[in-house]
């Protein structure tokens, strides 16, 4: 099949503004990943086309980008699963500064991740020669949130993020959930203090864009709702 693409280009050394460039590819197969399409262009037509990628199967979280208006991983989307009758539009993730073409500056995203203290807090000494016990049921409660690959598809799809760059955002909230609901963790209160602030969890207006965007199918809004309930029922 033949496909047409519109890819947002920007090289700060020569461009004042980002612009769309058209590419036409012939004889591509509909089982190609969008990442294969980008590689085809980079390796055979235009070596300047710039994007991040690594594992190419949806685990490393490098190649989040906006494809036909939706945040996706380029490696987890096949041509046959999108509309190829019209030109395919590819843009960088929104709401983050563009470094070059499809590469955005992730600093702000990782800063917010660190804010929620994304590590186990437990000041009680663990058993001297064994694991801390946890039921499989309790362990599995964490698995959905622990699937997060920090690709930023959710946070950059969120209208609250677009209007307030200080909003902590869905990815950091999912990470907070992963620890607050871990039966081994003792840091729930200090994390909830962080979330219960003007730029914290209440900026989530249950818009569900994050759920739509998440390539790992995490029900992010559900996780955030659980946290909201927990915080609002806190006793001081």
């Amino acid at each position, binding site marked *: 099949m033949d496909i047409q693409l519109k890819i947002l280009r920007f*090289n*700060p*050394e020569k461009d004042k503004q980002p612009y769309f460039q058209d590419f036409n590819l012939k004889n591509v197969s509909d*089982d190609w*990943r969008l990442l294969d399409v980008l590689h085809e262009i*980079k*390796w*055979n037509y*235009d*070596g*300047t086309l*710039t*994007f*991040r*990628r*690594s*594992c*190419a*199967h*949806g*685990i*490393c*979280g*490098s190649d989040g980008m906006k494809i036909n208006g939706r945040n996706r991983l380029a490696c*987890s989307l*096949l041509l046959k699963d999108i509309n190829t009758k019209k030109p395919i539009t590819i843009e960088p993730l929104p709401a983050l500064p563009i*470094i*070059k073409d499809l*590469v955005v500056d*992730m600093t702000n995203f*990782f800063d917010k991740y*660190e804010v929620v*203290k*994304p*590590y*186990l807090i*437990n000041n009680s000494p*663990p058993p001297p*020669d*064994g*694991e*801390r*016990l*946890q*039921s*499989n049921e*309790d*362990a*599995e409660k*964490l*698995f959905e949130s*622990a*699937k997060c*690959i*920090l690709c930023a598809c959710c946070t950059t799809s969120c209208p609250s993020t677009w209007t307030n760059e200080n909003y902590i955002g869905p990815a950091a909230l999912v990470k907070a959930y*992963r*620890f607050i609901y*871990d039966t*081994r*963790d003792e840091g729930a209160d200090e994390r909830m203090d962080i979330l219960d602030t003007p730029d914290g969890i209440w900026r989530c207006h249950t818009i569900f864009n994050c759920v739509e965007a998440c390539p790992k199918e995490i029900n992010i809004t559900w996780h955030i709702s659980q946290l909201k309930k927990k915080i609002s029922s806190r006793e001081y």
Partner: protein
Amino acid sequence: MIHSYDVVIVGAGGAGLRAAVEIPKEYSCAVISKVFPPRSHTGTAQGGVCAALSNMEEDSWENHVFDTVKGSDYLGDQDSIEVMCKDAIRAIIELEHMGMPFSRNEEGKIAQRYFGGHTKPADQNDPYGKRIPVKRSCYSADRTGHVMLHTLFENTIKNQVTFFSEYFVTDLLMENGVCKGVVAFDIANLEVHIFKAKAVMFATGGYGRVFRITSNAHVGTGDGMALVYNAGLPLEDMEFFQFHPTGLWKLGILVSEAARGEGGILKNKDGERFMARYAPTVMDLAPRDMVSRSIINEIREGRGIRGSDGTDYVLLDVSHLGKEVIDEKLPEITGFARTYLGVEPTKEPIPIQPTAHYAMGGIPTNVNCEVLLNEKGDIVKGLYAAGECACVSVHGANRLGTNSLLDLVVFGRRGGKAISEYLKTAKFLEVDESAAKKTNEFISWLFSSNGNEKISDIRTELQNAMMENCGVFRTEEGLKKMIDKLEELKKRYRNISLQDKSKVFNTELVEAIELENLLKNAEATVYGAYQRQESRGAHSREDFPKRDDNSWMKHTFAFQKFESSPELKYKPVVVTKYQPMERKY
């Protein structure tokens, strides 16, 4: 710009992050990585990490040692294997204490499952008699590597480790056999940075991208190995490259052994469970080298299935496990089959073929991760290596599944400890701006070179030729062809040109450097394979089908000679308890 850190760790996968966590606060430590730490390839490991915890059934670390030695086809150094398997129990408990989320058994302990090559004696009174599979692999659904990587990253944040993410290391600084730092550039703007350090650790991963079909990430180009090789230091046992039997057809994406650990079965086109013929006792849970060879054999004898891309595959059937088990224990890999091949694993078998997966060889080290200067075992002061880029050697000629994640945490920690000890007396050596000269010249050359060769052409030809001539089965003729091809590609590399001349996030330039690293690693691999006239583990020579313990119980040490072929030297295998015997499963 010159930075000074007591220790610089290159690579932010499992080994690098584990080492960073181990460095005491009083020392300054920087981790340099060409990707953000959670993008590292450790995250793609699926099935588990082995330790004889005995959470599901009686087991012992000695059983784990025996399996690892046998799995290595007796090329693994037995003293190192003992260190790893004994420490495994502590290491896994420690990960749990660090916060790693594990699947649990009924008592709330870490759950364990079967994995290829992990066994115990059927009769405890007959330790070397018949062996049966044992539940030794600790797991977190099929995302064990992902949660391990994230747990370690989280702990580096807790410890406030300094990261230089998206920095690419280009040079290793040495003075009279002592390491004194590295040179790197910031990918975002191509600024060259000199890192002066008392100790440097490489934890830079493998080089699976040297093959066409691979489970490895695009970043798996063996940069650390190539840098060490360029510094005149040896690479060990590079001819041993593991092909994982179950890569997703066409794509090479890993379908974990956990699928077989949970009861999945390999079938040929006639629906026959063919592993019953090759490994009657453990069948589908035989070690990877054997299963990969069995699959290729089935295909050669006409019992494979021809795919639309002209390659052949066999089938991995998990459908009989039921939707519940699949969704709970194998969600990720069955998701890959759905997304990429449109196959519904709860109803139909998954097309698979062997995929280049893991480098058993690498930068030679001792059990304290100190890099070896030569085959005599002398060490390079101030230089350490751990993880896939290193060769201790605990995996010998064939790594057992789950032992890679174990290697990362055991030796990452040991390296961190050894560095901390070394730092007590180590001093900075003089480093000035001239250290950046080589890197600056190379970058200038890449920008000015205007030949007519394309990076992608050279890389594709390398990957195809390696697949063809240096894959699961090898012959003298094929390896000779590969050597000629490699020499041709190295010449052509001098005539490459870049389209992207920009200093901002120039990934084409990064790919060009990675390609040079792949060519270096391919050199050490193919010459080692050509020379080794026997079949052992993952190195299977059709012209020398037997293992030859009289001549080849030794590790290859390849030294780069630049204008000629590498010089190969050899170091004897360390044998403690286990004399080589025939490897049957």
